[in-house]
């Protein structure tokens, strides 16, 4: 069964929260600067890829379902340990950062996200998430890259930034414009002796056209120009803006701290992309998964606090996703194998907090795996149409209904 419409929403703390939210002041009544902040023109999306396949069942735990305990004989999270959201599900105890965000109405949880005919290969399933199921059309175009190519909303300089090492994610794959990858802000400083002289010479050199038939040279030529321009902007950020404080010293914490600084610096960038890897927990999952989740929850909570203090929380949304969830039944190595549907999270000052859609049933399985209740492209459509103000239909190849995930 494929559900394209939101089936029901349950807020974290019952209907009272929903009522109070409906009384929030309409954007048109707010001051000019605030109105801009809510008009979609400078809203920011931060995407966090959870690489390896996050175990959704031990992330949003169906502690009210005895089948969960039957299938997870060593890995189950005890009823008294989950951070309860409602009578049926609760968060992994390492996700204290997320439960704090729920209390502050800053976290939406979309349950049972997946797609038809699930693919259990890391590479292929990740490709589907990155390209939004149009692999055959052009293997190098990502769903966000397509926005960079096509949407006037992202026409400015540095529309998107991949923050991290490793290869650039396919999601940011573009046809016409390049997306910048940044390892660390400090590494973006040119260290070449006389920097002014160097940049002047190279800028002059890059102004000279090269053989237009040499495509590869053209690509590097364009990269060099983008690199110089980006480096200049980043150095400016480093020299003028204040670094983020109170972030955990984890890998993800450092990445989000840098992104918070970039957001605050007034960079025109609308999309940031980071990865958080290690979720392929085939053996001895418990400790590793717990560490990964606390790193995730704590880093996002710190980010929201920092953005709130700097006045950017209402214009920022953080989307997490993973290529698949994991098998319902744990394996013989105290781990879990590749599965299908899983929950994803959207954090931000303007999200409609709480649970969206049903937790997949543990008795209605397909080859031992959960059936999805939300197509991931409905989530993408929501983020594009309702948050970034980008028409999702040409990006996703057809029209997908939006979910009710934002209070905008």
């Amino acid at each position: 069964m494929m559900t394209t419409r939101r089936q029901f929403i349950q807020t974290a703390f019952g209907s009272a929260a929903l009522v109070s939210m409906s009384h929030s002041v309409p954007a048109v009544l707010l001051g000019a600067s605030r109105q801009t902040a809510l008009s979609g023109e400078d809203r920011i999306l931060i995407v966090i890829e959870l690489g390896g396949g996050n175990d959704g069942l031990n992330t949003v735990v169906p502690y009210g379902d005895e089948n969960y305990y039957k299938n997870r004989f060593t890995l189950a999270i005890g009823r008294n340990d989950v951070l309860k959201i409602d009578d049926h599900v609760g968060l992994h105890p390492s996700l204290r950062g997320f439960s704090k965000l729920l209390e502050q109405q800053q976290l939406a949880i979309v349950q049972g996200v997946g797609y038809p005919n699930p693919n259990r290969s890391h590479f292929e399933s990740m490709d589907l998430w990155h390209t939004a199921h149009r692999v055959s059309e052009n293997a190098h175009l990502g769903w966000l890259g397509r926005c960079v190519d096509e949407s006037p909303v992202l026409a400015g300089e540095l529309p998107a930034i991949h923050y991290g090492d490793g290869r650039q994610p396919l999601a940011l794959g573009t046809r016409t414009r390049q997306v910048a990858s940044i390892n660390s802000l400090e590494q973006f400083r040119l260290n070449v002796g006389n920097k002014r002289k160097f940049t002047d010479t190279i800028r002059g050199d890059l102004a000279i056209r090269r053989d237009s038939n040499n495509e590869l040279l053209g690509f590097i030529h364009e990269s060099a120009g983008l690199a110089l321009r980006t480096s200049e902007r980043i150095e400016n950020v480093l020299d003028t803006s204040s670094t983020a404080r109170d972030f955990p010293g984890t890998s993800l914490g450092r990445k989000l701290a840098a992104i918070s600084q970039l957001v605050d610096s007034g960079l025109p960038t609308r999309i940031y992309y980071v990865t958080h890897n290690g979720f392929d927990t085939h053996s001895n999952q418990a400790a590793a998964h717990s560490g990964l989740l606390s790193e995730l929850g704590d880093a996002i909570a710190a980010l929201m606090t920092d953005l709130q203090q700097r006045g950017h929380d209402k214009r920022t949304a953080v989307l997490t996703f993973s290529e698949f969830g994991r098998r319902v039944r744990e394996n013989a190595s105290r781990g879990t194998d590749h599965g299908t549907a899983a929950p994803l999270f959207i954090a931000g000052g303007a999200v409609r907090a709480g649970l969206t859609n049903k937790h997949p049933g543990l008795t209605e399985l397909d080859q031992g795996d959960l059936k999805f209740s939300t197509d991931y492209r409905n989530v993408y459509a929501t983020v594009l149409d309702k948050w970034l103000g980008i028409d999702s239909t040409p990006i996703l190849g057809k029209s997908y209904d939006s979910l009710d995930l934002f209070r905008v």
Partner: protein
Amino acid sequence: MRIDPISAWSAWRPDEREPWNLMRAAHLMRRAGFSSSPDQLDVMVQDGFDVSVDRLFACDGAKVFDESMESTEQVLSSAQDPNALASWWLLRMVKSPTPFLEKMTLFWHGHFATGAEKVADSRSMLRQNRLLRDHALGKFEPMVQGISQDVAMLVYLDSTDNRKTRPNENYARELMELFCLGPGNYSEDDIKELARCFTGWEVRRNEFRFNKNQHDQGEKTVLGKNGKFDGDEGVRIVIDHPATSDFIARKLINFFVTDDVVDGPFCEPVAKTLRESDFDFSIAMRQILSSKYFWSSQCIGKKVRNPVEMAIGLIRGLGINFNMNELRDRLAALGHLPLFPPNVKGWEGGRHWINASTFIGRVNLVRQLVSGAPATFEAGSLAKAVGTRDGQQSGDWLPRLLDGFLPIPLQPSSLSSLTAIADRNGDGQDQRIADMITTLAGMPEFHLN
């Protein structure tokens, strides 16, 4: 433009129109090695094309060099620091008298990608590295049989346990998808059946062993063949599949010849050589490196210089004494640290090497190599390393240096910019040359291979 595959892979000979010269010798050494100094290139030019290619395959001096590295290896592998092992391999690339063998080993490492961080045992990583080097210019089957029982590989792929009742599918999947056939040439059932062949293959205390009690003795059907296959036979069936020669030919061509996507029909002459030689890589590589295509303008300069090629190439080309631990950290930041591939698919390569961040990192690394505090030169100075004599203007030595460095000529205006830096008044000669090479690294042509 369509190129006739038979003609593309037929033998190239230097002639008056396409003479054997410094630029062509440099092309050969950038691709089939890690570049050479202008003096070494001169020797190659004098010796001629055939002798130069023969020398790549002769691997003279490999044994003496290996022995000289042995004590270092023992110390490193007992130290259990995989980072130190990466520095050791970089040092091999810098010092080896047989750079082609190291380049082939780097290719196979990317093909049978295994990450030292997860393996977390230097001895196993070193053993795998030796296995790859031993077979790098040999035959495919002994290499694949070896890698299938290689401790580092099996640990990396979570395949240290393989019970009759619970066959581990991971190695069977990667053997077909990534090592031999490529996606689309096998079914999920083939994976399950091949996994049964590998039952009883285990790793215990960092040693491979066959546990007969855990081997599934029953009949299996793998890629259309039936029998009571064991693991060795399973590996052979996969290698013998017709898709293997095509898959391996493409990977060799993409690593050594061009970053462009190449299709099956175009690669067929190389695939045929593989099949007819029982996958002898010295024969296939000789065909590739002596082919009309390899020596055509369609290939020269049509790859992105990968970070290892860029750094080791400068170090070898200029005789730089550089700290390998420092180099290791910088290559890691550029996404190309040997023994630390991004995943089991290895390095994507090509345009993925270049983005805004790595471009700045590449320029900074070049600066560090020619002017950083840890950099000194075997020739005594950078000026001597690039081949200048007292009082010479850049016009006397720069063209030769650039012929060795770059696969395609610079724009005239770019050349003037470099000349102006090298010949400016004030500052020492080394300083001016370092600034010039740094500026060269900011030009797009420098990043081509």
